[in-house]
Structures are given as C-alpha cells and as structure tokens.
C-alpha cells in the first residue's frame, strides 16, 4: 500500500474522534498531589540528606577510635563509597527533576535527555554490580562479627557461596549492561548527529 493512501486512511480513522466526549477535568490542576509532582526533587533531597548522615556516622566512627582496626577501616571505606554514591544520585535526581519539567523543549532534546538519564541508570547499575555489591559482601561478615558469634567454618562457607553467586551474577549482568550501554550511546550519537 502506498504511503499517501495510508495517510488518507489514517486521517479518515481520526474523524470519529470528533464525536468522542473527552473533557479536561480541571480539578486535576488543584488536586494533583504536591508530593507526586515533586517526587524526583524529594527523592533527590532524601538521598543528599542520607549521604550526609552516613558521612557523619563514618567520621564519628573514625574520631572515636584511637587505633583504627581492620573492621573499622572496612566499614568506613564501604560507608564513604555508599555516601558518595547516594550524594551523586541525589544531585542527578534533582537535576533531572528540573529538566523533566521543561515540556516545551523540542522532542529530540527531550529524547536526548531521557537517553542520558537511562545511560546514567546503566552506569549506576554497573557501579552497584562492580563496586557496591562486592563491598557489601566483604564488609558484611566484618560487621556481623560484632553482633553474632560465628561458628567455625562459617567464613569459608560464606566466602564460597557469596563468591559463586556474585561471579554468576557478574558475568550475566555485565554482558547485558554493556550491550545496553552500547545501544544507548549509539542512539545518543545518532541524535547528536541529526542536529
């Protein structure tokens, strides 16, 4: 079928829209929840506040102990990285909140912004997979040792189980994330070339 023919069929199919009784419910303007409208800004602020709390906790722990033990060091490094991650996430979420609201920008610009945001999420997942997850897995037994008495052999079982599960996840997800990253970057480049 020719495109012009398709166009006219499409136009004809839209004629019935004249009879559709859809009206704007003006109550929505006032009733749309403030929290829902500013969800991203609130999420971003919470992230920044959380990162500050974590940093205060980490620095407090360092200041309290005269000699820094291996336990404290690992907990502090893990805490510091998590705080840095949470802070970055907070800043990006707030920035996205302001960009997202600019509905009158060109469609290509909005798609570009969305792709950059998707790319950021891919990098975030990579960061979780490659840095945060192993850090948590390493730090967990050191934190647990303070609260629970570990029976002998637990460490070896934990290392083996956590290691196997982590490595499997790492192989499967890394490949998927890398492919996704490549696809998004190529689409971003396409959009940039079209300008």
């Amino acid at each position, binding site marked *: *079928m020719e*495109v012009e023919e*398709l*166009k006219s*069929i*499409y*136009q*004809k*199919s*839209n004629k*019935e*829209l*004249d009879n*559709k009784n*859809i009206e*704007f*419910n003006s109550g*929505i*303007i006032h009733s*749309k929840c403030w929290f829902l409208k500013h969800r991203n800004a609130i999420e971003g602020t919470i992230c920044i506040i959380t990162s500050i709390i974590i940093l205060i906790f980490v620095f407090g722990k360092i200041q309290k102990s005269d000699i820094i033990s291996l336990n404290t060091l690992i907990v502090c490094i893990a805490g510091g990285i998590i705080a840095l991650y949470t802070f970055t996430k907070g800043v990006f979420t707030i920035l996205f909140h302001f960009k*997202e*609201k600019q*509905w*009158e*920008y*060109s*469609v*290509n*610009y*909005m*798609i570009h912004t*969305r792709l950059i945001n998707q790319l950021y999420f891919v990098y975030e997942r990579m960061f979780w997979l490659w840095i945060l997850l192993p850090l948590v897995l390493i730090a967990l037994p050191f934190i647990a040792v303070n609260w629970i008495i570990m029976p002998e052999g637990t460490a070896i079982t934990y290392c083996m189980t956590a290691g196997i599960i982590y490595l499997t996840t790492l192989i499967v997800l890394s490949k998927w994330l890398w492919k996704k990253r490549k696809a998004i970057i190529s*689409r971003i480049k396409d*959009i940039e070339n*079209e*300008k």
Partner: protein
Amino acid sequence: MVHIDNKDFEIMIAQNKLQILKICRFYSYGDMEAANDLFQDIVLNLWESYPRYVKRPNCKQSTWLYRVALNTALMQKRKNSRLSFEALHKENIQSEQYNDDNEIIRRLYELIDQLNEGDKTLIYLFLDEKSHQDIADIMGISVSNVGTRIQRIKLKLKQLNIKSEI
C-alpha cells in the same frame, strides 16, 4: 510574574482539542480509556508550561502545543500495550464502518510500535500532514534531515511489514 488567564487557556484547549486527542489516540494505540488519561496529563502539562509560553511571544502556538503533547506522550510509561492492541481490535469488530481500513490502521500501529521514540514521533507528524518545516521545529532537527529520516522510516516500515508477513 505573568498573569495566566484561565479563559484564554480554556479557549486554546477547546480550539486544539482534536489535535491533542489525535496524539492521545496514536500513543494509546486506540485504547480510549488510556487516551483519556493521557489527555488529562497533556492538558495538565500544557497548563504548567503555559506561563513560559506566554513569556515567549515569538513561539508558534502549534509548535509549543505539539512539543508539550508529544513529550508528555513519550514520557508516559505505556502499560499493557498488548491489551491496547486488543482494545483496538475490539473497536474494529464493533464498528461496521471502515472495517477494512481499521484493520490497516491496526497493522500500521503494530509496525509503528516497533520503531524507536524519535521515529515514532516523526511518522506521527508525517501522517498528521505536518509540513517539513513544522516537523523540524517540533522535533528540533534541520528541515533537510526531516526528509531523509522520513524516507528511512518508510523503508524500515516496509522491511518490518515484509518480515512480519514471513
């Protein structure tokens, strides 16, 4: 501070209702319930963006309206798309008029659904008989690029059609 006149806004929406509804129908794949939800979201975003539009007298109303409506449609997360296709199919069976045409439209929607967001928007504007200049303004690309991309999308749709027939 710009004073927003509710009356002006309401008149503008009434004048452009059909344009907005067409976008809603296209991005909801004929599911009128989803189209209604999208319509509310679009008008809400138009209302939020209206003060910025009023501040820019050089901005063409149709360009602004299309940009806001299309960006809202693209931003909304499309849930149960398969269900929407079913709704469209149901609508076809119920309406006695244009039955064959509706089947073609359903097929067209299925093919367009396989395109990326940008191509989908461009083909919508093309089907809506917008000029290349208008498409370029709404999309934020050059006029020469519009023609090239439309040709490329037509070819892609043809290939997708052949693939699905096999």
